[in-house]
């Protein structure tokens, strides 16, 4: 018998072996200290002061030869607007600042480690399904305050500061506890989308009252069209935006403000309850339960096939479906009809908000340059280029007025004009992702799984109260 069949371990070899294992473990352990706990924090307030000389062409005082790194989310909007419009515009003023452009599909996977390591890109487009929690970023002090940017003069709209050129409410949308941190650049209006052709062919008109609305849904149903539907599998967000739009119309825009601020009873009030009841009925009578298992792409394609009448979405829809929309489909936006005759807001009132987050890393190498880059995005040329390339409006007011870009965009613009000052939006979905998730599930239950308005509001109130009580979640208010 040889030794491998009768193993013996004497103390000496055992100790030797232990030492060897110990040696192996050492580099791993020392490395740890260099990780999370040990990041450097030495460049704190330098970020808020101009690094170069302030001048008329350099109002933010960037250091003219400092390189700049930007990271753009590569999704629906593409990245062409950055590479073809904004970077050239920036480099025209600052030819010696080399711009490094990167794009990513998974923002958090790519960028988060770099924040922890202390070398984030200078300007980041935080978007997509893997976006980072913007609130947590602000809380961690990683986001540059944008006050100086908004006070700086516009690049190409003479005589105005950047702030003056924006649609009202833009800055507030990116404000966290009183300070502007994030630029929400794309502007979207939200409502019910339908095919102008389908309506014209059937002689249907846009309803404004709830009874007209349900009558229209009935006519569609009679024609064998699913009158209304949203994709339960991944887009209940669209449905709850619709529901909360109704709630805001019934009870006024403060309903949404109270929800954002986690006020007591913000969900259990009559306006939310009425809206929930109204939409639950639509879901039960005029939709198709099978949609609970579908994804947004599938429902949208069905609408393009004239199989679905009305679909809740934002103004990105037309561009998203561009490839599959049949000739003459004619995307049109309809504001949500009034649920009661005593609604506080008129039927033209709209959910409209700036979205698509862009922010500057305060602990990056060139925060001033990042802000300067945003100034170029907010120029008129930048806005026009963006809208042309992405079919999406920007927060630069009236930048594309008079330009014929597409039917849906025009329709959305018109609705926005009709709404006037009666536009509103909510913020809780980005502030408290947990509440957003709960609302998605609750909405699916309400619309497609036989839920009731009472159960819905109770459930949401409970979730909101839980968030409010949770000390680990930073609270925001507006």
């Amino acid at each position, binding site marked *: 018998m040889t*030794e*491998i*069949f009768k*193993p013996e371990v004497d103390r000496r*070899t055992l100790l*030797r*072996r232990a030492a*060897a*294992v110990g040696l*192996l*473990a050492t*580099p*791993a*352990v020392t*490395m*740890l200290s260099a*990780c*999370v*706990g*040990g*990041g*450097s*924090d030495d460049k704190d307030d330098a970020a808020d002061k101009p690094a170069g000389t302030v001048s008329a062409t350099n109002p933010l005082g960037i250091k003219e030869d400092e390189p700049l790194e930007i990271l753009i989310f590569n999704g629906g909007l593409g990245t062409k607007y950055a590479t073809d419009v904004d970077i050239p515009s920036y480099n025209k003023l600052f030819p010696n600042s080399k711009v490094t452009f990167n794009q990513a599909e998974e923002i*958090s996977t790519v960028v*988060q480690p770099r*924040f*922890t390591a*202390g070398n984030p890109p200078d300007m980041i487009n935080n978007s997509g399904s*893997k976006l*980072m*929690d913007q*609130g*947590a*970023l602000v*809380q*961690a*002090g*990683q986001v540059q305050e944008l006050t100086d940017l908004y006070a700086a003069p516009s690049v190409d709209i003479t005589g105005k500061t950047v702030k003056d050129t924006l649609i009202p409410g833009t800055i507030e949308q990116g404000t966290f506890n009183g300070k502007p941190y994030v630029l929400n650049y794309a502007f979207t209006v939200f409502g019910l989308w339908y095919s102008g052709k389908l309506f014209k062919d059937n002689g249907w008109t846009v309803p404004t009252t709830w009874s007209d609305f349900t009558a229209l849904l009935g006519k569609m149903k009679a024609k064998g069209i699913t009158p209304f539907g949203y994709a*339960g*599998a*991944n887009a209940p967000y669209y449905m709850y935006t619709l529901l909360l739009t109704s709630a805001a119309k019934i009870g006024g825009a403060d309903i949404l403000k109270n929800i954002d601020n986690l006020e007591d009873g913000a969900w259990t009030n009559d306006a939310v309850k009425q809206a929930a009841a109204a939409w639950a009925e639509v879901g039960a009578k005029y939709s198709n*339960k*099978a*949609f*609970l*298992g*579908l*994804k947004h792409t*599938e429902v949208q394609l*069905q609408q393009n096939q004239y199989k679905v009448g009305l679909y809740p979405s934002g103004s990105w829809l037309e561009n998203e479906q561009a490839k599959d929309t049949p000739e003459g489909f004619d995307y049109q936006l309809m504001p949500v009809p009034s649920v009661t005759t005593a609604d506080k807001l008129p039927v033209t009132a709209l959910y409209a908000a700036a979205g698509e987050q862009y922010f500057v890393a305060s602990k990056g190498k060139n925060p001033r340059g990042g802000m300067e880059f945003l100034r170029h995005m907010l120029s008129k040329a930048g806005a026009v280029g963006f809208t042309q390339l992405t079919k999406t409006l920007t927060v630069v007011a009236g930048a594309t007025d008079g330009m014929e870009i597409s039917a849906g965009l025009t329709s959305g613009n018109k609705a926005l004009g009709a709404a006037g000052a009666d536009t509103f939006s909510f913020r809780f979905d980005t502030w408290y*992702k*947990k509440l957003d*998730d709960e609302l*998605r*599930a609750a909405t*699916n*239950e309400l619309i497609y*799984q036989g839920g009731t308005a009472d159960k819905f509001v109770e459930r949401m109130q409970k979730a909101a109260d839980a968030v409010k009580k949770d000390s*680990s*979640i930073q609270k925001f208010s507006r």
Partner: protein
Amino acid sequence: MKHGRYPFIIGFLIVPVAIYGTFVIAAYVQAFQLSFTNWRGFSPDVSYIGFDNFTKLFQDSTFWKAIQHHILLLIFLPLLTIVLALFFAFLLNVGGGSKGGRTRGVWGSKFYRVVFFFPQLLALALVAVIFSRVYSSDDSGLINGLLNQVGAGPVLFLADKNLALWSILAVLVWQAVGFYVVLFSAGMGSIPTEIYEAAALDGATRGTLFFKVTLPLLWNTLQVAWVYLGIAAFDAFALVNVMSVDRGGPDGATTVLGLEIYRNAFDYAQFGYASAMGVVLFFLTITFAALTLRVTRRDAIEL
């Protein structure tokens, strides 16, 4: 020989353990560390909060729901997969008739052997996309398209609270079977033919051959398969993430720990809490593996 033993053992282990320690263990140790913090993922500073994350975890109803789902998967994923894989492997190896006195797999077994493995070749994300189509609730769905034609549909596979988890389980089984067919085939191949011969001389039928000869001799492989599938049952993240209604729905009916960890880490930026869940998941999995190996231990070859 004695002198060469430990240098040999250390020599063989040093590189794998070094690589593994540097890139896996070190990273995990750090994640363990984070479970005692309230780190939110973006700042280099962390503060330690002791066992707070764990206390919170045990009061989290979603967490318990996920645990329940794991228990169901833990029972049925290994069971269904192993039964199917054993069955197919047996057919492919000794299921055919005899020719020239040689036992073979059934006709076409070479072909099946290649085909059965296909699901293993697909990335999980792709499998999820494919099965979203298979299960789709309208006419375009592979199953519902057929059901609707005979007027029996639609069955809301992924949108029905009672069916959703089972539908996902079916996909997991679908993907796993091929691997174990190959694994068991390899195991069956290494069973000395003399044993079969002896059994056959005693007049054993295929059934008895399978239960009296194949199964006991494959015990070691089966045990490994069971443990590995059990570990896989603790995962299931990728499929649930892409396939389920509203990620883990409807209404939490399909959620698993992996998904909750992911959600907490990336959606809620609660890395500390997510890491705590990861630690619990880790110990659950390890306990399961150790228990299974202990309970099912037979005279494994110990040198």
